[in-house]
Structure formats: structure tokens, C-alpha cells
């Protein structure tokens, strides 16, 4: 079975110029970690925003420095957040996009897609066509659901 047969094609994609405030508003109803594909004017996938990056904007800078000190390594600092309202407009997607992203092709097999996800410890990946245009997102559960469907469980 091919990736395109299992991937979700009704997805939200964003442009590099979108502000952080608009981005957060766009994804406020997501209750899981969203994969945010970043595209150019022709829908070519140019990067991905990982929500974990957003935490770096909120944590005190010192938290990272202390990470290298074993006895200071505490998870509590993840919730020691700073409030900086001006960042809503100052930061745009271009500032936080990861351009070293992994994607899968629409024509790849689901088995191959699963291996790539497993190897890279990703729960979902963007799906592109031969021209590099984004056409969907494939998540682990999409694969699981398809496997049960194959077995006629659903």
C-alpha cells in the first residue's frame, strides 16, 4: 500500500511570513503535537515547525546553560515560563522553521514510511509529490488504522 492511500490530505500549511501570534491561534484547538508544514507560494515544502522550538521562546535562557550541569538537570524548568507579549509580532515562522526536515513521497510504501518514522523517532511526517509540493501528512495512527482495515477489523 502506498503512503498517499493512508495520508491525511486535508492539512493546515503555513507561509514563512506568518506571525507567531497567528500561528498559535491557528493551532490552539490541537490537543496533540501538530506537525506544521511551511510552504512557498507554489506549495513546495520548505520546512517544518516543531512545536518544541516554541518552548525555547518561553524558557529562561539560563535553563539551557544549566542543562549541562548534572545536578541542575530538572524538568521543572520547562514550566518556568517567561511572558514576552511583543514576541507575538516579532517572531514569524521564518524564525522558527526547521529546514533540515524529513519528508516522505506519496508513492513510497507504508512499510518504508514506517521504517523512516521509526528510525527518526517521528510520529508523523509530511508527504510530498515528485515536485516537492506538500500533499498531506502521514501519522503513525494512519498506518495502524490502515493495517486494521486490511485485516477487515474496521
Amino acid at each position: 500500500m502506498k503512503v498517499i492511500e493512508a495520508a491525511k490530505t486535508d492539512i493546515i500549511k503555513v507561509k514563512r511570513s506568518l506571525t507567531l501570534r497567528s500561528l498559535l491561534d491557528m493551532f490552539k484547538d490541537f490537543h496533540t503535537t501538530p506537525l506544521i508544514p511551511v510552504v512557498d507560494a507554489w506549495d513546495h515544502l520548505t520546512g517544518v515547525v516543531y512545536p518544541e522550538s516554541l518552548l525555547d521562546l518561553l524558557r529562561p535562557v539560563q535553563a539551557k546553560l544549566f542543562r549541562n550541569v548534572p545536578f541542575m538537570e530538572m524538568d521543572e524548568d520547562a514550566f518556568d515560563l517567561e511572558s514576552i507579549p511583543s514576541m507575538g509580532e516579532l517572531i514569524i515562522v521564518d524564525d522558527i522553521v526547521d529546514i533540515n526536515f524529513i519528508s516522505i513521497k506519496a508513492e513510497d510504501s507504508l512499510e518504508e514510511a514506517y521504517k523512516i518514522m521509526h528510525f527518526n523517532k517521528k510520529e508523523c511526517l509530511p508527504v510530498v509529490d515528485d515536485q516537492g509540493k506538500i500533499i498531506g501528512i502521514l501519522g503513525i495512527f494512519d498506518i495502524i488504522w490502515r493495517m486494521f482495515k486490511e485485516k477487515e477489523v474496521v
Partner: protein
Amino acid sequence: MVVSDYLKEKFCLVDLQATDKDGSIKEIAEVLVTAGKIIDEKSFIEDVLEREELGSTGIGNNVGIPHARTKAVKGFVIGFGRSKAGIEFKALDGEKVNLVFLMGADPSELNLYLRILAELSKLLMNISFREALMAANSAAEVIAAVKKFER
């Protein structure tokens, strides 16, 4: 104390000559080239201006933080320029900008880049810090103000 780990006296200009955004970015970039971290000055300026085209970093309160993730920079670099007359910056509030912090980072330095951008934004929300920068008579006093307020 993180901003001051990267912002040094020699990267601070207390009397910017430029009167517009592009000119101020070029003026500070020229100083940063001396740091040896800007591999390609022309590309660096182009990338910062391209980022400005996507959205102005003139965030109000007479502050501008032009920045870019660019391969023209090795690691991370930050410079400062002050214009008492003010610079036309196309700021979000329409006001002129007096305080300009120019930042550049290699695309792989996302974590450090975002944290310093956040830290700087937080510092610049403090009116006393902005007043201290406006009152500074030298680059040394700029650095002293940064160190005092980032505590």
C-alpha cells in the same frame, strides 16, 4: 547573563549615522564583520533585509531587532546601534526607531537564536533599560546597562 556573552563593546555604535532601516543594518553589519563571524557581509545584509520584508522587526517602543538565520554567519553574532535622531524603520507602531539590535545566526543555531531573541525582547520591554541605553555615553556604558538589567 547571556546577551552580554555575545554583545561586546566593539559591536556597539552609540551614534548611528544612518537615517533609514537599510542604512542602519548595513552600518552595524560592517562593525560585526570585524568579529570574523560574518562569512559573507553582502549575503548577510540581503538575508536580514529579506527577513524584514516578511515582517518588520520594529516592535514598537522605538526598538528594532532585525535578525536572520543565514549561512552567511558562523555561529551567532549580535550588534547594537543607537540613533538619537531616530530611524525610519517601518515599525509596527509607525514611530521612528532609536535602538537597533542586529542579530544573525547559522541556521543550525536555532535553539540559541530563539533564546537570545526571547531574552532580548524581555529586556527591551523594561523602560528603564531602554532609557539606560538612550543615556549611555559610550559602548562601555551600553554593555554595562545590558549586564545590569539582565541580572
